[in-house]
Structures are given as C-alpha cells and as structure tokens.
C-alpha cells in the first residue's frame, strides 16, 4: 500500500466521521430550532405602546406599556382598580383585578397583560410596575399577581 493512498484513505475516513458529526449537529439544531419556533408561536404576544394598541385593534392577548393617570378608582373591597393608561398622547381605559404592586400609583409606568374587550376597555390579567429611575441593576422588580 503506497503512502499517498493510505493518507487519502485516512483523510476520507476522517471526512466521513466529521460528516457524521455535522449531520448529528444539523439534526439537533433543527430539533431545537423547531421547538423554539413552535413554542414561541404558541406563547408570544405583542408588546405595544398605547398608540400601537389603538392602531392595531385586536381581541388577542397583548402586553401594553403605559403610564397610570390620575383618577384611579378602586372597588369597595380594594381588589379591583379602574384607571386610564396613557402613552404617546393617547389613553386607554384599563380594569384590573388582583394584587397591585406596592409602587402602583398615578404617574408610574406599568406593563399590563390582557386583552381589549368589546366595550373598548383593556381587561388586564397581570400588572407589573416599572421601577423608578434609580433602581439598582440587581433589584428585582415588583410584580402584581393575577387576580384570584
């Protein structure tokens, strides 16, 4: 067996083996990619500002960022709040039932999850307050829990 032939055979074997590895990697990547895309499709929601919410009326679940306006109305048991949320010069009425974060008050930025009902009111199932400006990097943010 001549030396060049042996070298060539070794190279082929190596190439075959690495081809196998690349195939395995490609299959793994495809599976992971499929998982990510499908779960993303099933769970992702739009993140919008108030004008975007107005511009894209939808009945699906969305997450909206806005600022709480003066005139927060609480129900008798204190569990439900109605308020106007503003952003970009527009407002949307929001109703939320559940625990409010400690820092919730007019002027605070909030992120609400929910949908716009037929009456044009945003029904929030979750409400988070953005922390005020000088919050440290490592401070966990206050979070409201969904209503019971």
């Amino acid at each position, binding site marked *: 067996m001549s030396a060049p032939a042996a070298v060539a055979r070794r190279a082929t074997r190596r190439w075959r083996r690495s081809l196998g590895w690349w195939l395995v990697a490609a299959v793994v990547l495809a599976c992971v990619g499929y998982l990510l895309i499908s779960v993303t499709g099933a*769970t992702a*929601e739009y993140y919008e500002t108030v004008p975007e919410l107005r511009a*894209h009326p939808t009945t699906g679940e969305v997450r909206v960022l806005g600022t709480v306006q003066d005139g927060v109305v609480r129900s008798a048991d*204190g569990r439900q709040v109605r308020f106007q949320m503003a952003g970009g010069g527009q407002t949307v009425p929001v109703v939320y039932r*559940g625990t409010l974060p*400690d820092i919730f*008050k007019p002027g605070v930025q909030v992120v609400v999850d929910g949908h716009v009902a037929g009456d044009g009111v945003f029904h929030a199932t979750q409400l988070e307050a953005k922390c005020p400006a000088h*919050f440290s990097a490592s401070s966990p*943010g206050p979070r409201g829990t969904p209503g019971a």
Partner: protein
Amino acid sequence: MLLAELGSGFLLAALALVAFSALAALRAGRRGDRRWGQVGLRAFVAGFVCVAGASATLLAALLGRDFAVAFVTDHTDRSLSLPLTAAAFYGGQEGSLLYWLLLLGACGSVALASARHRVRLAAYANLVLAAVAAFFLIVLVAVASPFALLPVTPPDGVGLNPVLRDGGMLVHPPFLLAGYSAFAVPFAFAMAALVGGEEGNDWIALTRRYALVAWGLQSVGLTLGMWWAYHVLGWGGYWGWDPVENAALMPWLATTAYLHSVQVQERRGGLGSWSLVLVISAFLLSILGTFIVRSGILPSVHSFAVSPLGPWFFGFLLVAVTASGAVLAWRGTPEARSGGDGRPAAPAVPERERSGPSREGAFVLQNVLIAALTAAILWGTLLPLLSGMVGRELVVGPSYYQRVGAPFFLGLLGLLAVGPLLPWRGLSRGWSRRLLVHPLQPPGFLGSPLWAVLAAGLTLVGLVVGGVHQLPVLVTFPLVAAGLATCLQEYGRGASRWLRGPGRARSSTSQRRRYGAYLAHLGVLIVAAGLIGSHVWQQERQVILQPGQSVTVGGHTLTYEGTLSGSRDGHPVTTARLRMGAETLEPSRVSYPSLGQTVSRIAIRSTPFDDVYVVLTDTRGRAAALNVFDNPLVSWIWAGAGLLVLGVLIGNLTRPEVVPELAPAGSRAPVGAR
C-alpha cells in the same frame, strides 16, 4: 469636593497604569520575556490599587454624606442606615461599574500572580484583563463618573427606593456583580492560551479553576437574588424569567457546561475548542447581560435610568465578539480528533470492544442540552429586540420558558442519574444483553444502576400511593431520586475504598474534586425537587378578613386577630397579627409618606415541608386584605444551593494547583488542535 477630585485622580491613574500594563504584557507575550511580564503584572496590580483607592474615596463620600457628589445625592439620604448607605456603592449605576472593576482587579491580580511561572500565558491573560479593565475605566472616566459634582450642594439626598431598604441589598448585588466580573478571568486565560498557542495541560487547570470561582460566585448571587425576590416582593415566587434574571442565568449555564466539557478535555483530550467556546461565551453573555441591564433596550421591570452607557457596552460587546471569534477561527480550528496528549487515542481496551454509552458521551449530551437551553433563553430574552427589527414587537413570558425548558430539564435530570455510572471510553461490548439478562445482578461494569432504578421505582410507587397525580411531579421526582441514589452510591464506593485502606484510595486532591462535584450534584437535585414542588403545589388565597375570621391554605388555618400600629426607623407601620396553631405571623406595611409609597413586609413561616407566606396588601378599618400562599419545598431550593456552593468550596478551591495526571510528561497539547 476634595474627595471627588481625589477619586477622579485615582481613576485616571488607574487608566494610565492599566494601559501601560497592557503594552508591557503584549511585549512580554510576544517575546516570552519574563521581566516585561513582571512589569505588566506590577502595573496591573498598581492599577488595581488605584481602583481600590477610588472605591475607598467613593465609600468615604457616601458615609460622609457628601451631597456635593451627584452619586451620593442620587442614591442616599440622611435617614438611610449606615450599612445601606455603604451598599449604595454598588446600588447605583456608576458605583456598580466601579465595584465590578474593583473585583476584576482583585480576581485578576490573584490569578495573574498565581500563573506568573507561565510567562506567555500570564502575559496574554494580563493583556486581555488589562484591556477589559481599560474599557471600564474609560467608561468611568468619560461617561459615567461616580465623582461628578452637582452645581449646588443640596441639603439632603434623594434616598434609596424603599423596596431596596432591606438586608438582601447588602448581600445579593455584591455576589452577582462579583460573579459577572469574575467571568472575565477564565475568558482571559482561554484567550491567552489560544493566542499564545499554549502547550501542556496546566493552562486548562488554571482556566477551569477560575471558571469555577466565577461559577461559585454567580451561584451564590443567583440564589440570593431568588431568596431576596421571594422574601421582599410578595408575589409568592422567586423567579419571573425577566430579561435581567435571564441575563444572570445564561453565563452561569454556559460555565456549567464548560465545567463538564473540561473533564472530557482533561481525561480524553476532546472538546478542547468547544470548551474554549463555552468559556468565551460565558464572558460575552455576561457583557450582553450588562448591556441589556444598562441600556434599557429590552422591556424589563428592572431598569436603570436610561443612560448613555448602552452604546458603549454594545460597542464593547461587538469588539469582544469579533476579537474572540477571530482568535478562535485563527487558532482554535478543530484538528484531527486525536488524544489530548497529541497522540492518537490508544485505549487500553481496543475501541471496538467498547461500543456502549460512555461518560464522555454523557458529558457531550449534557453540553448539547445546556447549550440548547441557553440558546432558548437567549432567544426568548432577545425576541422583543429581534422581532422589533422586522415588525411588531413580540414578547414571551414564563410559559414560554417553562414549555421550552422542560425537555432539557428532564434530560439533564436523567443524565444526573445515569452519567456518573458510565465508565470513560464506554461500556464494553455486549453491555445491553448483559443488562437485559441479569438486570438485578449489580454488574461491575456499570457501577450499579440497580440502586438508581430502585430509588426511582420506589419514589414513583410512593407518589402514586400517596395520591399524587401531577404529571410534572410523577416524572421529575423519580428522576431526582435516581440521581440522589447515584450520588450516594458514589460516596458509598468511596467510603468502602477508604475502609479497605488508604493505599487503595486515589490521591486526596482528585478525591476532593470528585466528591465536591457529587455534592454539587446532590445540591442541584435538591434544588430541582424544590423548583418542581413549589411550582406545582403552590396554593394561594386572596382574602379580606375581619378580626376573628380565618382562612385555610394548604391545610394551615390562619386566624386574623387584628392590626397594630407602630413605627420602624421613623416610618409608620401597620402590622396584622395572624395566629396559626401556636405560632403568630405578622405581615406588615411600612409607609414612606415623603415618597408616597408603601412597602409590604412579608411574614414567612418556613419548614422543610412548606412555607406559609403571608402578604398584607391593604387594611380597611379593622379588616385586612391578605394574600396567603402555601409554598411547598421552597426551603429545599436554599438548602440545595447551599450544598452546591459547599461542594464547590470543599471539593475544588482548597485543592492545590494540579497538573492533570493523564498527560504524560513532555507531551505536547497545542491549544485547539484536538
């Protein structure tokens, strides 16, 4: 006034020293010149001393309540206790960067000094660390100086947000930031090994060791963050899949993968380039995390004031990605899959005799799972940014992470049970037949899978008999039990070997490392059980009670007795008293009228089985609005994390510098050429 000038002077001097250190290190690295290496190291250490001086100055300004300094005014006020005033050092943006730099200097100085016998390696690592430090110093000097002065000195500061006025503030940020900064050290050594074309294996031991330090710090930081969120925020949970939380988790995951792949590198000489990719990724992910946090580019409930730092960190990230990518492509191209010592692998048993699953196979699978999990988290975290570029902004919440993470989580749990039982180089031929024919005879060739199978089976039966029907529990708890059995079996084997006589035992350092690692495994398994248990079995009631009324959650009946008014540090406090058996729980609300804010103080009664967690959300007359949670197994998370950290400490940090035994003396192991 004077303090601010002193601090700025320290920072400028540090910048000059670090820049000089980088140049000296470059020269030392190119020429292999020991004296220039020493010069570089000394300049780096001197730079670190200057940074320490700047830090001491900032601390003095904070504690001396020097409100002429903008940083002091923005983050403290006169009513703040001394410990929290000191904690504002890393609580604010500029100070946290300085703190990061301080730790980078400390870790870097120790690491470089301990590696100085490897002239070129230490020199190039010095170059990388000095470059990273220079970036932070430029930012601190030019963009975000903690020593900026106000035109008019106010009489008092703005103060710290009330939510942060808690003991957690004293412990969580320092560890997390320390972890973040420590990832730079293994990164520097990995890059240095690549650039310098290191030979031999001791650079692997060095890199591994510093990666372990960073990993341990980040483990503590993450756990304290969860603990803090749980004890302070009052939503009954500890992890919300917020971008900032994910940013801290990703480098930890990448380093977890590295700590396993490096075993393959040490023992079998494989995965060298991949291990380097992991170390480098951990650092890049930590910078990405900083960028996410500081730029306000992603929707997060954590946020710094939107600052001019975003573009700086983005630029730094781009440079770091490009530089490490280029170095990897230049030096790290995987060559023929030969043994780690440069020879083709020559196993004691011929390859074809060993065809079954192997330890290295388990490590590879573990790495694939962790890499995929990290990619999934990265994708979820960056989705708003990526989707915003092509259309409407999309976000994912906890349900995404739970669904996408579940298969990887289960796979990793399974590996914890199986992996440690597998031998290096694989099971010998016919293993599956032998396993099928003699399933109950503990076969020597496979450790003994019997114990793991038995533990899993008994747990499953116990759960079913106990009436548990939740699928996540029925799947994960048996796997956890199997993993525990595997770990304990390893300890049992070690103990029996030790009983037969010390002569038969392996060297104590390799033993320590081994049993430290299994202790970490035990910790992870206990954490996993705690995560699943608290997630699946959590119960919550939201009630409004009049005095004398009761609420029952998770089998615990709490009777509301009434409210008390008092004060805490001069702030009015309303406390609700609830009786639960012989115990009294006292959740309260502290108001900060000057800030127009009220903060809940949660009452938690913790046992190994469950936590009763009570939040006072409001009071109306004599009535109290309460959220009452029963959170099973949460204390397992803290206990498991403690074991993990203990494993890191006793198993690994105490061990002296060891050159892995498997590389024969004088062998060559060019970096990446494997």
